[in-house]
């Protein structure tokens, strides 16, 4: 029986792009369905009734939701080009940092870019502190996964590409080369990998979308007062 792999996503979402990156890395064919998140399709609501969000992977009719859960499912189902180590300690480490990115980094980055003006300095400080943990975690490795792109690199796509776009869209400076030389190098390596490069939303389109949706950014407003 032929495999049917569907991915419900949104062009600008780092979360659905993660799923596509993993599938591309493993050479898995899939059909992509673009969702309008302001007008969700009956299929999406059927496949993810609990959260009603993208991404959803549907494999032979069976849905899997939550990007990090999907990444692990992909790795367990298609065993070529593994994205997780076999070693339990390394696996726990990758999972820990991926969760950290989603639960701590992203909200902090967002606050630094588009949060309330009076909290701007504090938000910048917090985001910087959190990024420092990732900088330290990278150490001398080429990728978080070691010699090849792994689950944590894919989860860190937010840092690798979206962060730079957020910065430009909102006029905030976070990922500077002086403060984060390792992360900056990693980001360059990451976006050069073909399975990743092919799955990045167009920069200008994303900037326009972010500005439209979230405004010009706290830092831009801040500097206007000076």
């Amino acid at each position: 029986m032929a495999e049917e792999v569907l991915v419900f996503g949104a062009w600008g979402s780092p979360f659905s792009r993660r799923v596509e990156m993993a599938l591309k890395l493993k050479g898995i064919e899939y059909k992509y369905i673009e969702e309008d998140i302001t007008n969700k399709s009956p299929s999406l609501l059927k496949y993810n009734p609990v959260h009603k969000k993208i991404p959803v992977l549907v494999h032979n009719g069976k849905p899997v939701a939550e990007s990090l859960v999907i990444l692990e499912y992909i790795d367990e189902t298609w065993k070529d080009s593994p994205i997780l180590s076999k070693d339990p300690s390394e696996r726990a480490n990758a999972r820990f940092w991926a969760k950290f990115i989603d639960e701590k980094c992203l909200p902090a980055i967002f606050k630094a870019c588009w949060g309330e003006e009076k909290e701007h300095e504090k938000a910048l400080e917090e985001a910087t502190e959190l990024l420092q943990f990732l900088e330290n975690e990278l150490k001398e490795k080429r990728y978080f996964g070691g010699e090849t792109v792994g689950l944590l690199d894919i989860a860190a796509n937010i840092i690798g590409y979206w962060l730079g776009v957020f910065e430009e869209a909102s006029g905030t400076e976070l990922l500077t080369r002086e403060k984060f030389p390792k992360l900056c190098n990693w980001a360059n390596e990451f976006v050069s990998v073909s399975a990743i490069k092919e799955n990045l939303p167009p920069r200008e389109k994303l900037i326009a979308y972010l500005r439209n949706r979230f405004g010009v950014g706290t830092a831009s407003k801040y500097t206007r007062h000076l």
Partner: protein
Amino acid sequence: MADEVVLLDFWASMFGMRVRIALAEKGIKYEYKEQDVFNKGPQLLETNPIHKKVPVLIHNGKPVCESLIIVQYIDEVWKDKSPLLPSDPYQRAHAKFWADFVDKKVYEASKRVWTSTKGEEREAAKKDYFETFKILEGELGDKPYFGGETFGFVDLSLIPFYSWFYAIETFGEFNLEAECPKIIAWAKRCLHKEMVAKTLQDEKKVYELVGQLRKLQGLE
């Protein structure tokens, strides 16, 4: 070389209880180190510098943090006994999704109830709490456990919250069994398991703790 397993934990932590249940299921000997979460000690801060929270499992000197990550780690290291997760990738993904739901929704919904002030805030928190458990009841369906015929990963991730039900019901002024009878029936079934019954904490002690926490937050 014998394994050295240490658990940094707090008696009432539902997250810590998950790990204790997992360790008990696998028959792993470990050293339990009770932490003062109001005055965190150096070992906790050193082994979990990012979140500074319990539980932390230290296996042969290496720390693992975040309860569900710890449980998966335990399942992968001590893989020859009592699997905590199914072996089929789709069922594993399903279990991880629901455990993640418990993490994202149940803790926050619970906290909102016991930190709420009377009136509108409490009513909104209660509504959210019931909705969360109704969704879980939907997922449970007619199965004895979330894991199907046997106690599994999702059951383990949720059952420690049972220790907190009495406190939340009392402060929230409601009866969970009336709203979500299936959940209570499921919990009682889980309590028949020795590992679970031994690990879950006295609900009256938890109630006292919540009272203390409310005072600390200026809610009493």
